[in-house]
Every structure is written in structure tokens, then in C-alpha cells.
């Protein structure tokens, strides 16, 4: 018996040794501190920074990039004819030295900067832009940018349909002059040309690797060159030493890590490993509260009201939302301040379609269209509409945690006036497909500007011609459609803004939406990073930032 116990004890020691040996492999890996610190050191000495990106880029081909994720880097590899001034919505020349719009608003002439080189040394000419316009119109490329220039640019449809070999409305009288002719005056055409769809590209390079390869091997004239790209893992941007804007970019290198875990991103920032959290990665709720409450981080936060509106699109074509009184009642029944709280205060409640930083926004709405939170009034309107006992409806929303929380808040508000809402969360393209099907009573959604012009909200989201593509409320008011058509030809300026203000009022009378809130984006920036700002149109200003000794 004693022998048995001794043997068992021996076995116990043996097994513990096995476990300890397994654990000892952990200790051998604990000297990674040097590596982590080394990364920090590199960022200071070599003018290099690390940042996180919440997901890999969907596209790097400018013709295909149409989301904020890829805008972050596509605008670094390429130059459009015009761009926005830093920290402003004013359009200035980028690849174009100067530009001119004819008096009738139909001809745009661009004088290009000379000596601008692609990353491979080829010189940029007017043809470099024409080649990109052709790619946008080429059905084989399948660019989502096509609708911005076809049929507006003369000859675009013929080219797209294969009836012409050139786009007759786009010509290059000499290598440094580009002339674009459009069919009717369009107040936002310069804004369109500033979109990342339309930079200079090197056709020979694209042809040599093909469209698919070009989507992950970008090569343009921009401030940054692609040094390396590991899909789903990281991307390294290297300074374009021959960039035509002297002194830019200021850093030598930026390493972008695709980090899906927002909490880890916040920890990396706290460790000093990453330079900022801006457009590239959302600050999670708990981390945001912690940053706000911690004196060490509080002053590192920067905020920017986004040019965006979160809203509920009410299906104007189906019962009971085809009744204006019902729509107005829903507008008054939702407590938007609760939604602001659910966003940790990173939002401002709104009763308007246009966001505060968009021309046409009205500081004070007339009382008859300013649907303030008033449950009693909402009940009265519902009764007047013949729904005193309420009704049942469905609400489509995205399946994110945040969207679900907000949907539940709206659901509980509407329950109080007798409307029984069934929430239907869907993700990705299932969600947008569902919204376009127009089979839901309400769709909880948001719109972020393509460019700073009110038509990008009112015309895109509420014109009858946009049902169901972007007009998910199925709102179709011929008076509004006419007003939109007239306003679209006006040049940017007070007259145009006043026209769109008037259109907004006309729409609000019908209450096709419930505008919910305007989001406020918070960035957190290391004290040793200089030149960071949150641009009202573009993403993070990678070419403008620099580091100081720290």
C-alpha cells in the first residue's frame, strides 16, 4: 500500500512537471516587450507611424472604390483634378493647376500641372484622366461611378454602349489641357470630379497587369506609394519622394494593421503603439467613456459633427404610412435624446434631413414642420388618422449591436402610442436588398455625403426617380421632383442653398422620414502627432501629419 502511494506521488510529480514544462514555453515568450517598444522607437526616429484599420479595404482600384474604408487609402495613392482644401469644403486644384467653367456651365477646362509623375516615373498628362473616364464607363470594369458621368458627359452613353471609341465630350487639345463638356448645367459637377473615381491613371500599367490585379496593386501620382500589402493583415504605405506638392507627405512610412477588435485598438493606442484612432477605427462605447473620464486621454479627443443623417424611412406607399398624419405621429412619438444617449452622446438629435454642416440646413425650422417629441400630440394625430388603437408594422435594421439597441428604443417609444413594431435585423447586402424591396413599414438607415452639396441628400434620397435605389421611403412628390430638377442646374452659392432649403421644407411637410440624429465622430490623437484634423469630406489626413520627439 505504501509503495502504491509512493508511486502515485511520483506520477503526480511527473504530471506536474509535464504541465510546468508546457507553461514554461509561455515564459520564454514573455520578452516581447522589446519588440513593442521597438515599434514605438521606430515611429519616432524614422518618421513612421502605425495605425489600425477596422477592416481590410474592399477595393484599391479608384474606379471600384465607393466606401469610406477604401477612401482612406485610395485618396493617398491617386490625385483627382480637384480636391478639398485641408479642413474645408472649398474645392481647389489638385492635379489641375487651374480650372475654368464656361458661362453657360457646360464646358469645364482644366490646365494640368506639368512634371507630375506616376510612382513608376511615367508623366501624367490629360490622357491619364481620359483613360480613367473610359474605365469608369467600360461595362467590363463595372464601376459604381458610372452614374455620376453617364449620361451627363457628352458622348458617355455612346462610349459605354460601344457605339464610339472615344468619349466625344472629353478631349485633350494638348497634353496639359483637359476639356469636359456636359449636356446640361450641373452645380455639383466639380464635386463629382473630386470623388476618388476620377484620378489620373497610367493605362499602360493597368493594361500590363489587368483590372483585377490593379485592384490590389495601386499605382498613381499620389503622396503615398504601396510598399507592401498582406490581404486581411496589414498594408505599408511609403512616402512618394517625388510627390509634386513640396514638403508632402511629411512622414516616411505608415503601417496600417487591419484590426477588427476595437477594444484591442484602444489598448494599442493607450500603449502608444498607434498614432490615432480616427476614421480608420471606431472608438468602442466603453473605451470612449473611459477616454472621456481619464484626464490622461480626455484632452486627446477631437470631435467633428459628420455630414450625415440617421433616419427612419417610412414606406410612403403602403398603409398606414401612406397617411401623412400617421407619419407625423411617428415623428412626434420618438424620443431622439434617448438615441443620443445610446450613442454615448456622440450624436445630436435632429428634425431635419440636411445635417448642420450642409448648405441649406435651417437653424430654426418653422413650427409646422418641426416635429418635436410630444407623445400626446402623436396619439391625437394617430386617432385623427383613424388608428386610435394603433397598428402593427415592421422595421428593418442592420444587425449590429448599436442598431439593435436603437431599434429597441424606437420600438418602445412607438409602443406607447399603440404602434406594435416587429424589428427585423439583417446584415450586409441582405439588409440593403430588403430595404429596396419596399416590403417593410420602416427602415432604420443613415446617409453620409458623397460631396458637400444638399442635392446629395435631397435629390439622391427623396427624388421619385430614386425609388427604390436610394429612396427607401418610396417618397414621390411631383412638386418636389420639379423643384429638385430646377435647383440642380443652379451654381453653388446662396441661390442654390436657398432653393434646397425650400425643397427641404416642402419635403418635411409630408414627413416621409423621421430624421433621428446627426452623428459626431470622435478621434483620439497622440500628443506627439501633429497636423491631424477631421476633414468634413475626406478621411484621415495621412499626408499632412507628422510626429514630434516623444
Amino acid at each position, binding site marked *: 500500500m505504501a509503495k502504491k502511494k509512493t508511486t*502515485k506521488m511520483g506520477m503526480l510529480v511527473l504530471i506536474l512537471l509535464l504541465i510546468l514544462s508546457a507553461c514554461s514555453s509561455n515564459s520564454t*515568450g514573455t520578452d516581447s516587450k522589446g519588440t513593442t517598444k521597438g515599434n514605438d522607437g521606430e515611429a519616432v526616429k524614422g518618421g513612421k507611424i502605425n495605425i489600425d484599420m477596422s477592416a481590410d479595404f474592399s477595393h484599391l482600384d479608384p474606379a471600384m472604390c465607393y466606401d469610406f474604408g477604401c477612401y482612406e487609402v485610395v485618396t493617398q495613392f491617386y490625385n483627382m483634378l480637384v480636391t478639398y482644401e485641408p479642413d474645408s469644403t472649398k474645392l481647389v486644384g489638385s492635379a489641375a493647376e487651374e480650372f475654368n467653367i464656361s458661362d453657360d456651365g457646360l464646358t469645364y477646362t482644366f490646365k494640368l500641372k506639368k512634371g507630375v509623375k506616376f510612382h513608376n516615373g511615367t508623366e501624367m498628362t490629360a490622357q491619364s484622366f481620359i483613360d480613367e473616364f473610359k474605365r469608369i464607363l467600360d461595362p467590363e470594369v*463595372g464601376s*459604381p461611378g458610372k*452614374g455620376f458621368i453617364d449620361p451627363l458627359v457628352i458622348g458617355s452613353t455612346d462610349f459605354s454602349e460601344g457605339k464610339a471609341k472615344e468619349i466625344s465630350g472629353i478631349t485633350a487639345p494638348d497634353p496639359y489641357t483637359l476639356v469636359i463638356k456636359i449636356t446640361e448645367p450641373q452645380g455639383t459637377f466639380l464635386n463629382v470630379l473630386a470623388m476618388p473615381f476620377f484620378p489620373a491613371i497610367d493605362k499602360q500599367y493597368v493594361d500590363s497587369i489587368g483590372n483585377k490585379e490593379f485592384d490590389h496593386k495601386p499605382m498613381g501620382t499620389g503622396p503615398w506609394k504601396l510598399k507592401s500589402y498582406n490581404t*486581411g493583415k496589414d498594408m505599408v504605405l511609403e512616402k512618394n519622394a517625388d510627390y509634386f506638392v513640396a514638403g508632402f507627405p511629411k512622414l516616411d512610412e505608415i503601417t496600417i494593421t487591419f484590426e477588427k*477588435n476595437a477594444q484591442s485598438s484602444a489598448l494599442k493606442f493607450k500603449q502608444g503603439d498607434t498614432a490615432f484612432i480616427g476614421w480608420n477605427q471606431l472608438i468602442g462605447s466603453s473605451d470612449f467613456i473611459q477616454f472621456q473620464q481619464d484626464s490622461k486621454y480626455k484632452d486627446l479627443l477631437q470631435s467633428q459633427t459628420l455630414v450625415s443623417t440617421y433616419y427612419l424611412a417610412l414606406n410612403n406607399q403602403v398603409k398606414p404610412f401612406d397617411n401623412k398624419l400617421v407619419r407625423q405621429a411617428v415623428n412626434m412619438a420618438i424620443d431622439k435624446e434617448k438615441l443620443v444617449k445610446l450613442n454615448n452622446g456622440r450624436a445630436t438629435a435632429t428634425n431635419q434631413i440636411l445635417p448642420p454642416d450642409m448648405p441649406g440646413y435651417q437653424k430654426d425650422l418653422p413650427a409646422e414642420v418641426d416635429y418635436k417629441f410630444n407623445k400626446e400630440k402623436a396619439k391625437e394625430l394617430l386617432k385623427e388618422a383613424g388608428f386610435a388603437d394603433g397598428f402593427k408594422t415592421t422595421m428593418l435594421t442592420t444587425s449590429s449591436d448599436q442598431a439593435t439597441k436603437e431599434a429597441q428604443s424606437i420600438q418602445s417609444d412607438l409602443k406607447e402610442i399603440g404602434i406594435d413594431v416587429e424589428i427585423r435585423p439583417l*446584415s450586409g*447586402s441582405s*439588409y440593403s436588398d430588403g430595404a429596396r424591396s419596399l416590403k417593410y413599414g420602416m427602415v432604420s438607415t443613415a446617409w453620409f455625403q458623397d460631396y458637400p452639396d444638399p442635392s446629395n441628400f435631397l435629390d439622391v434620397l427623396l427624388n421619385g426617380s430614386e425609388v427604390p435605389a436610394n429612396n427607401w421611403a418610396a417618397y414621390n412628390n411631383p412638386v418636389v421632383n420639379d423643384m429638385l430638377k430646377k435647383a440642380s442646374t443652379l451654381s453653388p452659392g446662396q441661390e442654390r442653398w436657398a432653393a434646397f432649403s425650400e425643397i427641404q421644407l416642402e419635403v418635411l411637410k409630408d414627413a416621409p422620414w423621421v430624421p433621428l440624429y446627426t452623428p459626431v465622430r470622435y478621434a483620439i490623437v497622440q500628443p506627439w502627432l501633429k497636423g491631424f484634423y477631421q476633414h468634413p469630406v475626406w478621411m484621415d489626413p495621412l499626408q499632412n501629419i507628422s510626429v514630434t520627439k516623444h
Partner: protein
Amino acid sequence: MAAYLVRRILGAFIVLIGISIITFIIAYAVPGDPVRTVVGEKASPEVVEQVRHTMGLDRPVYVQYFSYLNRLAHGDLGFSYYNNQPVTHLISERFGATAVLALSGWAVEIIIGIPLGLLTAVYNRKITDYILSSLAIIGISLPTFWLGMWFIYNISYKMGILPIGGSGDIKNLILPSLTLGIVGAAYYQRLVKTSMLEVFSQDYIRTAHANGASSLRVTFRHGFRNGVIPAVTYAGMDIAFLMGGVVITETVFNYPGIGQLAMQSIQHLDVPVIMATVLLSAICVVVMNFIVDILYFLIDPRISIS
């Protein structure tokens, strides 16, 4: 033996074809439009239809499936709808990373789980058993994401001794492997304990003791070889499962493996990548099943290969 091999390979082939058909049908049955993955949410309906045609997605689903099979037979898995990269490139880039993580996590599971199972069996109903079994229950109950975040916060952030997620270095592998291993080890502990207790009650073990064999010899030479058989079956399926991608661990530690790729492809209805990841998982299961059967044969002389 040859007939056995042919039968197994044929069976595996039929299983894989069946899985590919089911996956293809499911990918088409779920609501959503994969063309939106390519052109984005804001693209005009005209562009969407144009791209649908270019991609051949306007053809009947069975035509698309046979076209897929034809390409597959030529080793072409197609291009990802989401980022336009060849699927073979995406899979090969990530499978290596997942294999390394799976093997290291699996090793941690076994190194911790099997000795714990033995120990708790040997000390059954004693204080050592109660303590270690309780620890195993805690291990089994720990949510992977919680344990992963706990490691990241305490080991990587607070102590600063290991990187916060990522891949490419052995240091990046330690915490995800431990996370997988600790949660998974508990299963092995319970499995080995139960099996060893059953073995300990067998006549031949009593005979061995009666013949004067030491406890160490009885446990390892006579008991362990039989007691470990259920763990071998489980280990085979476990590694197959891990090889198919460990979504939560890969997401928490930002480890770019097959699990993350599968998750992303489902979110974007990226059918070629969905098909590839599902088929890869299925192949892992089929291959491991086969290996486990061979191992059975080697470990247990009562089992015949035929």
C-alpha cells in the same frame, strides 16, 4: 487495404460533392445580393445589372454550379467578390496561419488536458481530483472571447510582455494558443478521466496489480493505451475542426486565418470564398476521420482495417 482506400476516397469524394451542392444552394437561398459586394451599396441599379451579367450571376443557379465545378476541376476556385483576389491565394495565405494556430492550440489542449485527466482518474474522489475537476469545469465554461480579452488586457496591455494580437511571430501565437488550449483542455480531461476510470475497473488491470506490477506500470502500460482511445477520436475531430478556422479566437486576437476569412465571406455573401472555406473544412474533417481510423487500427489490435 487497396480496396479499403478506394472505398474511402470514393466516399470522401461523394461527401465533398454533396457539401458543395448544399453550400451553393444555401449561399443562393439567403437574402442578399453578392453583386452589391462588388460595386457597393450606393451603385445604381443599371451598374448592378451590368456587373451581374459580367460575372455570370444572371444565369440559372445550376448552370453557375456546373461552371463552378468545371473550374474547380481545373484547380480554379475563382476570384473573391469582396476584394478581387484569387481565392486560392486568399486560402493559401491564411491556411498556413490557421494550421499553426490550430496545431499549437491543440498541443496545449493535449499537454494540459490528458495529464489532468490521468491525474483526476488516479486520484478519483480525492482532494486533487476535486480541485482539478473544478478547474476543468471552469475551463469548459469560460467563453473564448472573455478569456482572450482577459489575456490581452492583463498579459499584453497591463504587463506588456506579449503583443496585442496580430500574427507573424511566435509571440503572437502564445495567447491565442493558450486561449484555445485552456478552453479545450477541459474536454480532454473529462474524456480521459471517464475512460481511465472505466479501464481501471477492468479485470486485466486487477490481474496486473495481482501480479505485482507497479501502479505506474499498470497505469501507463496497461491502462493508458486503452484509456486514451476515446481521446484519440476526439483529438482527430478536434484538429479537423480547428483547422477549419477558429472564428472567435482569430477575431479576438486579430489573427488572419481561415475563420476570419470565412466570417468575412459570409458577411459579404462572397460565394467563391464561402465555397472554398466550407470545402476546406470538409476536407479537413474527411482527412482526419481517415487518419483517426488508421490510428485506431494501430492503437487497438482488436480493430481490423477491413
